[in-house]
């Protein structure tokens, strides 16, 4: 359910837009952070920001790092400014919400998540977090109702803090920054198969662009909306926001045609082979069933060793997050509807409408699973919500 593949596109954009100098720095910071050297990472971030104070990705990273150091107030300040400068980005709102929730300020958390969703109606993490917030607020309300007096400490929040921008927004930033300094030479990007990079570095290079405007800018946001430039075209194929879960699935907006470029170039002529096709669908149904049954081990078993976790997460971090998300639920229902299967040699692509329902949340989205055949067994290599 996490946005996985769009990252590619994001990278494409970044490359298209140009300079990659920043990517290295970002990669360094990211690496340090992952190694647990948060203080060091933060120093590097500050250093970079002193030169490029408006760099959104880095500012975002700074917020994440501050949050990891439990410097909530500072982290909140960073994310708040980001929301002011980039009103269209859901991630800073989401992370603000996580921080507010940790302080037990559920009203503020709720408001922030609602804004996150307003900026991006298909924003799954924000929905899941919002579901949690509503649950927490409800239980707080109940405590007051019953005079339990146990103003329960905020406690461990299982809200998801985002470590990086997701693709869609990365795209936006790129566009904003590209758009600001006059006609950036942006070739309409033929969806070039993205160079296969480690997922992590892919995300990182996002806003790889010399910062055009140093000061906090409020203008860019509306700019994006009306921008009829090539830049806009560049964004267009970005993971189209799926219909908001609440509003019930209308036809999924845009199905990204040039989506995740598989590592091996897709053969243009898919041969329908019902045996393979059935085998693939059996796996997909098994996967959905394990998910719904909350048998996390079985569920994770459907993912291949080559699986690329979204958001640049490590396999383990991703698996832990999935476990936390799945096991805590009272009930889960997962429905796979109108699947389209494309089998090409040892890879298969299944696109279907997914209905996810838990005791807290109902979400409908369009999903694409990319499966590979390993030792005669189909496994998920990539999972994309769109």
């Amino acid at each position: 359910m996490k946005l996985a593949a769009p990252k590619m596109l994001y990278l494409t954009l970044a490359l298209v837009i140009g300079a990659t100098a920043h990517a290295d720095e970002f990669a360094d910071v990211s690496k340090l952070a992952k190694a647990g050297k948060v203080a060091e990472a933060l120093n590097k971030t500050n250093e970079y920001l002193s030169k490029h104070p408006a760099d959104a990705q880095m500012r975002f990273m700074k917020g994440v790092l501050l949050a990891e150091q439990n410097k909530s107030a500072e982290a909140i300040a960073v994310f708040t400014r980001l929301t002011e400068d980039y009103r269209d980005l859901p991630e800073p709102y989401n992370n603000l919400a996580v921080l507010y929730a940790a302080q037990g300020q559920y009203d503020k958390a709720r408001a922030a998540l609602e804004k996150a969703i307003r900026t991006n109606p298909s924003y799954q993490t924000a929905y899941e977090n919002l579901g949690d917030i509503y649950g927490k607020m409800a239980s707080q309300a109940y405590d007051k109702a019953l005079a339990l007096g146990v103003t329960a400490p905020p406690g461990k929040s299982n809200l998801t803090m985002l470590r990086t921008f997701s693709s869609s927004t990365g795209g936006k930033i790129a566009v904003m920054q590209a758009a600001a300094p006059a006609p950036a030479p942006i070739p309409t990007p033929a969806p070039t198969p993205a160079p296969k990079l480690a997922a992590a570095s892919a995300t990182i290079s996002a806003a790889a662009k010399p910062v055009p405007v140093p000061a906090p800018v409020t203008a860019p946001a509306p700019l994006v909306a009306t921008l009829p430039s090539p830049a806009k075209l560049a964004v267009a194929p970005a993971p189209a926001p799926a219909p908001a879960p609440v509003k019930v699935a209308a036809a999924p907006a845009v199905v990204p045609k040039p989506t995740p470029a598989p590592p091996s170039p897709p053969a243009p002529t898919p041969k329908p082979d019902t045996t393979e096709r059935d085998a693939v669908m059996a796996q997909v149904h098994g996967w959905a069933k394990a998910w719904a049954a909350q048998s996390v081990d079985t569920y994770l078993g459907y993912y291949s060793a080559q699986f690329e976790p979204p958001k640049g997460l490590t396999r383990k971090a991703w698996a832990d997050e999935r476990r936390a998300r799945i096991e805590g639920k009272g009930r889960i229902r997962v429905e796979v509807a109108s699947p389209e299967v494309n089998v090409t040699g040892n890879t298969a692509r299944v696109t279907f409408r997914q209905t996810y329902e838990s005791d807290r949340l109902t979400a409908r989205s369009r999903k694409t699973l990319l499966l590979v055949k390993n030792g005669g067994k189909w496994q998920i290599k990539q999972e994309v919500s769109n």
Partner: protein
Amino acid sequence: MKARLKAGGMLGLLLLGMMGGGLGHAAKKPERAQVVRKANPEEQLTEIYNDLAKHDLSAAQRKADALVEAYPNFRLAHLIRGDILLMHTRAVVNLGAAVPPGSESRLADLRREAAVRLQVERPAPALLPRALLQMRKDQRHALIVDARHSRLYLYENRNDGLRLLQDFYVSQGKLGINKLKEGDMRTPVGVYYIVGRLPGVKLPDMYGKGALPLDYPNDWDKVQGRGGSGIWVHGTPPETFSRPPLSTDGCVVVSNDDLNFLTRTVEIGKTPILIGDQVEFVSKDQRDKDLRQAAGLVENWRREVEKRDDASLKALYSPRFKSSADEDISAWLARNQFLPGAKKISVTVNDPSYFRQPSQEEMIVSSFTQQTIVGKFRHVVRKKQYWAKEGKTWKIVAETNV
């Protein structure tokens, strides 16, 4: 019938089984000519439920947020807000849908409070409270406590008739009504008066913003040997906006806002408060008939006093009669006879009031000024009589000179 509410795409339905068909008639109130009042908390609750009935979750959420903001100790509002918050993500099928285990009795209390608050049935504008047969001109207000529906009605006695000013949610004794003795956790049934005002600052916290003591036990209670004392109308402690319907030791408890309003409105020693579980609202015809009957009883009594025929006067009194000094009827009448030797006397009854106890037990309480003139001598006494229906006839069971 269950009230099936659905709000918004995601939330499924809310089934307040306990509400019965409450929503339908909860909202309507009689037309009141004047004063634009800010919606009180209970009316806001009703509005929230109406929003949910209209599938308007965000309006309901907004109002619930505002309500708990304004009344942070209104527990029922918090409960309903909790449900509304859950409705954003899941179906809510009853009130307090996801309350943690271990608080069942509190939840049950809140559900009862919700039921009585949201199921309020206010009388049609043309109907009159049967209990208030006739008030004295100088009695500007009267209170009626409907114990069955946890409701207090405040009536204004205007020259052109009675008018319902407002009604309030009330809590009563843990074990309900019909107080008999000290510590029985029951609220008395009868016709009483507000006899004082006690400011909250001089009272323990549990009385809230103040108290209005009642004259329980009244004369009839005393004849019946009913005990206990200190029955008050009072407010709520700081930590809660309201108390469950059955939660007091016998007092009638209202919210502090309501208490303040009542304190300003009532007149000490004049404002009656009638408590019972058979509060009826009847047509003007029915009430006029009841009034003629009550006035007829007193008129009959007046004639017998004037006739100075002991036997027929005594026949109007119940064998149960006892005076407050424990005298029997003969001793009581003898003591009350003005100038016993006189043959030709004139008796008039002025400024009467007639109240009908709102209970199963039929009882009329009349108060009036009795004036007796014998030649050039004149005697005036204010009397209170308790008439009870014994078999098919009404008899005086208690009588006092006020």
